[in-house]
């Protein structure tokens, strides 16, 4: 215990006295400051105070070093916990007070100006400041655990504390900041009139399209699109699931792969493929014109195209949710109903379907949320069918830079999603839909009624075939000269994107235009996958194995970021982290953080699903042998969670590689991501390059997923592998 405390104090001391206090221009992790040290640029607190006149930093020394007095005290002494708790709290609050009050131009609030007079400016927090802040957080949690919270368990209190702080800083704070921006007036101050005029705008709520030719408000467009997509993706997903689980179709494995392929597809690719096939000069349209004299039209531009693309994109998610549900329907129930002389159709309608209802509702709601958050498809195919996610984008990025409008639209989008999320939680919270009960349930599912079977075959097979054609085309499109015009074979697009030259004296030069964004995207996706899985699994452990006050709120908070649409996160990060105290825009870190907190819920759900299967007696056995909770976590639980770890790593990685809506606001000159490259190419009509890039991304993703599974390995249970069940049960 003593060792831990001293260790943290050392870290705090390092942060305070040695590491640069402010963010340097070279990036958070660069070691440039060691190589080219200068007191003015890279000073820690003392040089900052005395050379650069940042006097307000000095008081931080008091709460930081005061706990040194506890070295003589016994941990059971109430004074011990008090000292830590209060030093931590005072230090932490003062840290943020000075961070928020003094910005890049001196005082942020005039009231302080009048009290204290002029003061120098300060930049965002750097490595030194972060280390010091972490030490304060440790003091707080150590003080709390010394008082007996949660059985005096340092590890647990520390974990809970850090996760709460992280989630508050990177999820709640940006949302809050965005909320305040919504109320900003045109002059810069805060006024309600600007807010009310923008929110009660006809552009958002108008219903004109119902009775005239005018367009409807953005809100109605979005909700319509979401509902349509949710319906179609759920129905198709159900059809796929029934095909795989309940029929004796011979090519199940192929269908399974085809149905899941859209998940690892980079953004815009599906929209692009649809344009190439069904656009006015698309392959299918020209064929129809040649064969049947049907005039090609621009039908895909607008709601029909978006609906089509989103269904293609989100059916796999519905499928993954529903396959678990379909497989877990107890065959005993169906057998019982058959023994009571029910026909196949009656069994299906009265027993099977109702038992799947929770899963169907879940898939519907997830489809709805994903549709609302979708950005790429409306952008490429929307033409003028405006939806909230693209409107938010144009409010910030268009020439009419209107922060307030963007913030208001983001708030509306967030509210819709939260309402839906809440409904889902309410509806489903009471029913369980994860399989594996452990009880013997050996029955045989009855065959599906004939009509249903044929209905399923006739929906799934054409759809699967079309998916196959689209992906074939995507691979093929990279090798032709110019799609739609010149189909001669060429490698020039691959060369232009991925060429490597050997230049004398300078070695290998990555001259291909795609390397920059490709390597950045890949690196950032990998880097963010690790903390995502780590925080996710840790949170899952805390939620399943420990009881503490406010656990429900904690759970909701960590899951919240899953519900927030990407555009909202992107916009709120831009508002919150462009100015001190936390200055992150333009760096790679903001991308990593956006990914970590966006995808963390996936790790949480995977972990929870897996841990619900582990017997708590294992933990107890370990505790009775005198292991601390962190030892138990590391040695007992983690090895048994390998499938969950793999699942969360894979999902986080894939979601990070294919993210757009959040990321499009956060890319910068130094950290260009795949999405901006592809978008730039699409805008420039360079379809060949866009396709080449996307194919490369898909191949790299597949390869990395396989590698991850190899590295983590399979857990040794001594019985049949349960990993399939977990992967299926953890979505939603």
């Amino acid at each position, binding site marked *: 215990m003593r060792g831990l405390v001293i260790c943290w104090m050392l870290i705090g001391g390092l942060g305070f006295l040695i590491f640069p206090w402010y963010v340097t*221009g*070279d*990036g*958070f*992790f*660069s*070691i*440039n400051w060691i190589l*080219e040290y200068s007191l003015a640029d890279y000073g820690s607190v003392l040089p900052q105070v005395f050379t650069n006149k940042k006097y307000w930093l000095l008081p931080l020394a008091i709460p930081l070093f005061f706990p040194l007095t506890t070295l003589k005290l016994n941990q059971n002494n109430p004074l011990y916990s008090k000292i830590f708790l209060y030093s931590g709290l005072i230090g932490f609050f003062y840290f943020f007070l000075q961070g928020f009050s003094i910005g*890049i*131009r001196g005082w942020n609030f005039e009231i302080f100006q009048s009290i204290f007079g002029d003061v120098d400016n300060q930049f965002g927090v750097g490595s030194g400041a972060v280390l010091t802040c972490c030490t304060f957080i440790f003091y707080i949690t150590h003080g709390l655990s010394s008082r007996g919270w949660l059985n005096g368990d340092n590890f647990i209190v520390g974990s809970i504390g850090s996760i709460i702080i992280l989630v508050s800083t990177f999820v709640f704070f940006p949302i809050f900041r965005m909320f305040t921006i919504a109320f900003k007036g045109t002059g810069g101050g805060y006024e309600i009139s600007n807010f009310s005029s923008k929110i009660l705008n006809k552009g958002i709520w108008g219903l004109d399209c119902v009775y*005239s*030719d*005018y*367009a409807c408000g953005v809100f109605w467009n979005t909700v319509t699109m979401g509902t349509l997509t949710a319906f179609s993706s759920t129905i198709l997903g159900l059809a796929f699931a029934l095909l795989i689980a309940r029929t004796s179709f011979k090519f199940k494995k192929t269908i399974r792969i085809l149905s899941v392929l859209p998940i690892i597809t980079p953004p815009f690719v599906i929209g692009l493929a649809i*344009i190439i096939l069904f*656009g*006015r*000069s698309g392959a299918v349209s020209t064929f129809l014109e040649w064969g049947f004299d049907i005039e090609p039209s*621009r039908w895909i*531009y607008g709601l029909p195209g978006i609906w089509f693309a989103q269904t293609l994109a989100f059916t796999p998610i519905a499928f993954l949710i529903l396959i678990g549900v379909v497989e877990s329907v107890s065959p005993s129930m169906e057998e019982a109903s058959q023994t009571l002389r029910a026909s196949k159709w009656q069994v299906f309608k009265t027993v099977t379907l109702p038992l799947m209802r929770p899963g169907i509702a879940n898939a519907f709601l997830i489809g709805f949320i994903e549709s609302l958050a979708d950005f790429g498809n409306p952008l490429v195919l929307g*033409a*003028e069918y405006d939806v909230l996610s693209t409107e938010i984008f*144009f409010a*910030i*990025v*268009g*020439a*009419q*830079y209107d922060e307030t409008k963007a913030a208001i639209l983001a708030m509306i989008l967030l509210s819709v999603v939260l309402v839906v999320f809440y409904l889902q939680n309410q509806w489903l919270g009471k029913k369980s839909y994860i399989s594996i009960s452990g009880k013997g349930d050996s029955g045989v599912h009855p065959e599906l009624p004939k009509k249903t079977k044929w209905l399923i075959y006739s929906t799934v097979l054409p759809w699967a075939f079309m998916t196959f054609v689209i992906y074939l085309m995507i691979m093929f499109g990279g090798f032709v000269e*110019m799609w*739609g*015009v*010149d189909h001669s074979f060429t490698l020039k697009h691959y060369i232009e994107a991925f060429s490597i030259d050997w230049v004398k004296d300078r070695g290998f030069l990555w*001259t291909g*235009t795609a390397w920059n964004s490709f*390597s950045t995207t890949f*690196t*950032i996706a*990998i*880097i963010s996958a690790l903390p995502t899985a780590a925080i996710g699994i840790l949170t899952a452990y805390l939620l399943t194995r420990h009881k503490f006050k406010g656990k429900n709120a904690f759970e909701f908070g960590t899951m919240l970021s899953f519900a927030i649409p990407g555009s909202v996160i992107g916009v709120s990060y*831009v508002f919150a982290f*462009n*100015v001190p105290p936390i200055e992150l*825009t*333009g760096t*790679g870190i903001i991308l990593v953080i956006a990914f970590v907190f966006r995808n963390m819920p996936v790790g949480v759900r995977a972990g929870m699903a897996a841990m619900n299967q582990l017997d708590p007696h294992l933990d107890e056995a370990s505790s009775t042998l005198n292991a601390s909770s962190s030892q138990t976590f590391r040695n007992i639980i983690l090895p048994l969670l390998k499938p969950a770890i793999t699942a969360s790593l894979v999902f986080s990685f894939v979601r990070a590689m294919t993210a757009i809506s959040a990321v499009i606001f956060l*890319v*910068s*000159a*130094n950290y*260009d991501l795949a999405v*901006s490259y592809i978008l*730039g*190419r699409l*805008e*420039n*009509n*360079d379809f060949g390059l866009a396709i080449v890039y996307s194919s490369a991304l898909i191949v790299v993703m597949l390869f990395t997923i396989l590698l991850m599974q190899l*590295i983590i390995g399979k857990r040794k249970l001594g019985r049949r592998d349960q990993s399939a069940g977990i992967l299926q049960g953890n979505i939603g």
Partner: protein
Amino acid sequence: MKNIMKLASIALVLLFTLFGLTNKASAAKLTMYCSVEIDVCEMLEQAYEKETGTKVAMTRASSGETFAKIKAESTNPKGDVWFGGTGDPHLTAAQENLTAVYKSKHFNDLLPAAQNQAVNANYKSVGIYVGALGFGYNKELLAKKGLPAPKSWMDLTKPIYKGEIQIANPNSSGTAYTTLATILQIFGEEKGWDYMKALHLNVNTYTKSGSAPIKATGRGENLIGICFQHDGVKQTKKGLPVVTVSPTEGTGYEVGSMSIIAGARNMEEAKKFYDWALSPPIQTMVFTSGKSLQVPSNTKAQADPDAPDLSTINLIDYNFKVYGEKSTRAGLLSKWDADVSTIPR
């Protein structure tokens, strides 16, 4: 043992990636916001890096988007130089003190239009190329539909072209805003707005980027795209069946500009780049590459033989000072939003 090896290799991998991400330290740096075509941006980036060894970080976005980005970052600028994009956003940026004053050593060699841009912006911007406005149509689609070829601005409002025209949204595109200003200057205030409303009925989509209409036209997804003439010629050069038209009533033009961002972190490097970009050899390289067919602003540089010849085009006396004004722009855009874009079609 195996566990230690695993941990060690993971740690090594992490260390390498961190280094990879962060080693942009010591060399000279330049952050460029580029608003011309992405292939031109990349050409510039690579040429400058090769010649000077400076590490260039470049992002490409349309002129409207870049203006918004610079404005959003104004308290803490991340960019150094803004290259390309139509002149109006550059003028507005200059008025809002978002860009820095700098007079290049090549100033006296520039076309009068380019010099005017600098004067109008109080030397916070300069013209780097000149391009005339116009439109282009897909001749194969036109023949298939049996429609007559449009030759003038007024032709575009004919009902036979309903749903066949694409133009960008003036809120996000410099091309479309220039079109709006051009129409108002050719036809006058009242007739000009009537024209925009009539044109609106024939538009099938307002795209985000200014050059998207002509690209869709090239691909056969659209019949007539309003664009700068050099964009149309570029599509033809690529082998697409596009015919570029210079409208008979006369047309406006853009003076593509370059500005240094106020408060740039690499100010000296930005000035170096500024002079380099305006020099005859670089202008010749860019504008004869076949990727960019505007007329270079440095009179000592050469233009592409296929570039539209400005001397044969009927150019109006475009009033950049008035139409570059922030208040004029805001007024026109809100009027367009309210009166034109809401008309059902």
